[in-house]
């Protein structure tokens, strides 16, 4: 059956099967593979797209239902350069394997469009339908909070330098070449191990 809707601002008129899923239309007919399928049952959120500005799971949307709707996919978010949210995801290391990233970015986009200054709890609630196995969500929330201008603890963590060990503080460093033979603890020098090191040529 025929259905007319826009995808990323481009008007589309498509002959779809009854029950054909939006995710299949996007990925297979339109080549918009940024929308990912992670579970197929509307649980993981990897296929999140915006339909008239609202986050929806494209695996549960019949394409035939979209008459007159405006669909935004991840490809549509960066048409005039990166969206600030996308830049924030990069800046705050909010990405690992990236499979959930398009969905998370779009859920965040829908949130900020509706509520420009969400609290931490509101951010967590807005992305709880987007499963991520890699990041633990902290840096994702930091990225969203940075765009919103609301503070977040993981943003503070980013400026905290690692604790330097006593030996590093005493001036020890890291040689370029590791020991080439089993190092032994040198009792005569107290705690300093003697290592046969390559010497760090060229540094």
């Amino acid at each position: 059956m025929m259905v007319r809707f826009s995808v990323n601002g481009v008007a589309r008129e498509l002959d779809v099967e009854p029950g054909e899923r939006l995710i299949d239309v996007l990925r297979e007919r339109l080549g918009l593979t940024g929308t990912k399928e992670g579970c197929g049952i509307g649980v993981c959120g990897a296929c999140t797209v915006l339909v008239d500005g609202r986050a929806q799971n494209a695996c549960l949307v019949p394409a035939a239902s979209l008459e007159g709707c405006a669909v935004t996919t991840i490809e549509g978010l960066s048409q005039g350069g990166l969206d600030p949210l996308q830049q924030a995801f990069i800046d705050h290391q909010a990405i690992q394997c990236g499979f959930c990233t398009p969905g998370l970015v779009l859920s965040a986009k829908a949130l900020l469009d509706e509520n420009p200054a969400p609290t931490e709890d509101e951010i967590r609630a807005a992305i709880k339908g987007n499963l991520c196995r890699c990041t633990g969500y902290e840096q994702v929330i930091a990225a969203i909070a940075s765009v919103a201008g609301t503070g977040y603890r993981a943003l503070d963590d980013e400026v905290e330098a690692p604790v330097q060990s006593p030996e590093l503080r005493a001036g020890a460093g890291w040689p370029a070449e590791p020991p080439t033979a089993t190092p032994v603890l040198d009792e005569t020098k107290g705690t300093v191990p003697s290592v046969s090191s390559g010497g760090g040529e060229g540094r």
Partner: protein
Amino acid sequence: MKAADYLRAESLDQAVAAAEQGGLVLAGGTDVMVKGRGRGVYAQRALVDVSRVPELREVRDRGDAIEIGAACTLSELCDDALLAEKLPLLADAMAHVGGVQTRNRATIGGNVVNACPASDAIPALMVLGARVRTTRRELPLADLFRDCPACLRHEGMLVRTCFYPDAAAKKTVLEQGELVRSIIVPVPAAGSRWLFHKLTRTQGIGLARISIALLGTFRDKGTGALSEKTINHVDVCMGGLFSKPWVLSAASAEEAVAVLTAKLEAESTALADYDYKHRVAPALLADAIAAWRRGETLERKRRS
């Protein structure tokens, strides 16, 4: 997902006509699209999309009640100022459904007609004394549901593994071609207090293992001290426990717990995780009533 046809109904008449010819009514599709995946259960059926039928999209203030169109999405209702003011219990219950993506498509009518024992909205609607207006009649919500003992054996009560592709036909008294138009929800009396609690495996997006909707009033002794208030009357509906939604009315916590326990032991021993629920549900109800009396909730945030 395979289906024989797809009709975007423009009017209620059109939707009814298609449903009378055997079409399967679909609103948000958050259940149908999951059940239809892989199993091909709708391959021979036309889908009747009622999500844009104007008659099903209205929220009307009727003074002592609010009439909610069946095709209103849960998100729309969670954001509705009238509901927030008059039916905060219902708004809170619906806010517990899934993630944002699900609430943006799922409808209140779909939630009711799917008649899942683990539904979040049904317990709230039940204690609020909701009525259902169909295209043919008006009836108490409690009378909409048929007894469905098989659901008790269904571990997790997941949409994906639901035994019934056409839940409306199997689990409700709706006849072929009969559609739910709206849910009429009475506004609770002044002075009543509510509580909603959903127990899940993790805090995230899972279905309820046990849910509780409470609504009731206190006998005013005039002392003003909250701890001395006595329960006048409390209605309780619990999800995840019974083969048909059921409201327990009691005048004390002890009575409520005793009635619940007796009913569980009489009717719910087939539950997939009966041992757990038999132990937890009555105790959780006691905790819920205690929290409700104090004007608190059972919610506990993950982060300190």
